[in-house]
């Protein structure tokens, strides 16, 4: 009697396991929601185009972005710049350089700033957040106090303060100035995630099985904290691009004229906005579209990953 029951139960379990109907994982769910979101597709397409442009820019740019090819048609005294013409569809800037080529190459520089500044914030935040969240105790208290103070300085103000420390601003100094203020944001986010998991059942189970502390943190806790970090990182890329543009406008941006960045172009164009507004409109439009793309992607990811939206 008992054996029949056991066998029947075993068969039932086997049948369920081998039925192939595994339900849907959180990730699949998120993807299903993401696919149906128009905001996600708009953001993804914008960023896709931007990435491709940034990668192939040096090969498809018609001219050298630093060369003053149209200087003959440019006159400071007459306040004249080269108009659109054969081979120069957008004309030249106030220095007689090809605007289209500068915009294209600028995509690469802008992407570099966005990505590397975010990486600085991410890696710094990862280290601090891991130390604080994984160990707790006085390590946690100490790190979180530092993070609190860093957060108490508005991020752009911190970026400006760091930017001033470099006597010759260049792309690297801009990346550092924009990236460092993001460290506390990631640290706090990650620490919160890890803290919530430290007491959870799967970590307790792993600990009971005698898994080493390091393995628990990297194999069990970290992978479960990744999704909000990805969302935040996407949004921080957008913030970084905007902050870099602001630094450029304040004269703390890269001074390298042969490798323009959109914020730098926009900063340069402000001086002549009364007579040549188009010089400002092109880089500003590019910044707005790309920032919008990253924001849309980040927001739609956030909504898709949020388990509250699970049906």
């Amino acid at each position: 009697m008992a054996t029949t029951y056991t066998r029947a139960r075993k068969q039932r379990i086997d049948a369920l396991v081998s039925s192939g109907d595994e339900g849907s994982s959180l990730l699949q769910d998120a993807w299903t929601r993401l696919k149906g979101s128009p905001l996600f597709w708009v953001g993804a397409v914008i960023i896709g185009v931007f990435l491709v442009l940034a990668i192939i820019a040096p090969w498809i740019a018609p001219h050298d972005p630093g060369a003053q090819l149209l200087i003959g048609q440019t006159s400071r005294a007459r306040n004249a710049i080269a108009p659109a013409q054969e081979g120069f569809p957008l004309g030249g800037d106030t220095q007689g350089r090809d605007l289209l080529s500068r915009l294209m190459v600028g995509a690469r520089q802008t992407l570099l700033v966005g990505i590397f500044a975010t990486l600085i914030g991410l890696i710094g935040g990862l280290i601090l957040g891991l130390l604080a969240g994984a160990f707790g105790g006085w390590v946690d208290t100490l790190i979180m106090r530092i993070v609190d103070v860093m957060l108490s300085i508005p991020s752009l103000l911190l970026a400006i303060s760091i930017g001033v420390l470099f006597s010759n601003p260049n792309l690297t100094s801009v990346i550092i100035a924009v990236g460092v203020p993001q460290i506390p944001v990631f640290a706090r986010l990650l620490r919160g995630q890890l803290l919530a998991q430290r007491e959870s059942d799967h970590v307790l189970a792993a600990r009971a099985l005698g898994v080493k502390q390091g393995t628990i943190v990297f194999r069990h806790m970290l992978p479960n904290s990744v999704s909000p970090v990805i969302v935040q990182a996407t949004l921080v890329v957008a913030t970084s691009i905007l902050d870099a543009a602001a630094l450029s406008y304040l004269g703390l941006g890269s001074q390298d004229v042969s490798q323009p960045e959109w914020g730098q172009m926009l900063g340069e164009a402000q001086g002549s906005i009364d007579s040549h507004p188009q010089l400002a409109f092109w880089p500003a439009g590019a910044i707005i579209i790309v920032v919008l793309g990253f924001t849309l992607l980040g927001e739609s990811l956030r909504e898709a990953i949020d388990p509250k939206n699970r049906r």
Partner: protein
Amino acid sequence: MLRYTVRRLLQLVLVLLVLSLLLFVWLRSLPGGPVTALLGERATPAKRAELTAVLGLDQPIFVQYFKFLARMLRGDFGQSTGVSAGTPALDVFFTRFGATIELAVGAMIFGLVLGIPLGYMAAKRRAGALDNSLIVVSLVGIAVPVFFLAFLMKYLFAVKWGMLPPSGRQTPGIDATRVTGLFIVDGLITREWDASWDSVKHLILPWIALGTIPFAVIFRITRASVLEVQGEDFVRTAEAKGLTRTTIRNRHVLRNAMLPVITVTGLLSGLLLTGAVLTEKVFAYPGLGEALYIGFTKKDYPVVQVIILAAAAAFVIINTLVDLTYALVDPRIRAR
């Protein structure tokens, strides 16, 4: 509540202390060190040595820090060298403080007055035409660089169409009595209406430029928060009780939905301070932001350090107040 308040205030003091330490390290990391930062690169060696002694830079580093701290507590930040050469940095701060307050408070009011009602309306008509178009506006509002928006508005409304003044705080030569340092308030107190109106005209464009991001953020938070609250059981109960729509809106939905908005408003104050640097530069508005910019370019570090310290302190104090307000509204927070 008292325990919580005391704890928050102690944290505040701690944060300000660490902040002063950061500022101290920062001043010493400036290109060329503090002597060059204060005197410029062409100072004579004798003058450099004198200042080194005066600043106590030949003393041990922790003695230097405590002296630095003591000077700051006495309000002695040194003389301005670039923004307004010769005057104490603290005086530069106080003469410009009112200007930035008028700008920042106005921008915040712009954000709140537009953001909260529109956020509520958008949530009520979710996925409607109003909701969708406002979402697009708020997303673009976040994506536009503040200084570009400011420039664009200045170019269109001031330069091209001449509707509003392009720069400054008040028309030069206007006969206005100064009382509080807040020009709009001054005009109201002394009944010099034209002076107040003149200040307002100078501020309309900067208010909108600086208020766009607060508007976008407040709109989105209000919308999300109202959406969440109106699905709660207590709202259904209120409806079932037959309460009027106005009562449900004011007493139940908005009251609960406002909590995240309060927090965000506190956090946005930091954004206003930095946004003010960009906005004030575009409109040549004589506030702290412009002083900070001039300070950086002319290496006027006494003024820069006052403003950075004040900005960070203001931000921390505002957020401490926000946390206290929050605890007052929500008893669960106090228990933690």
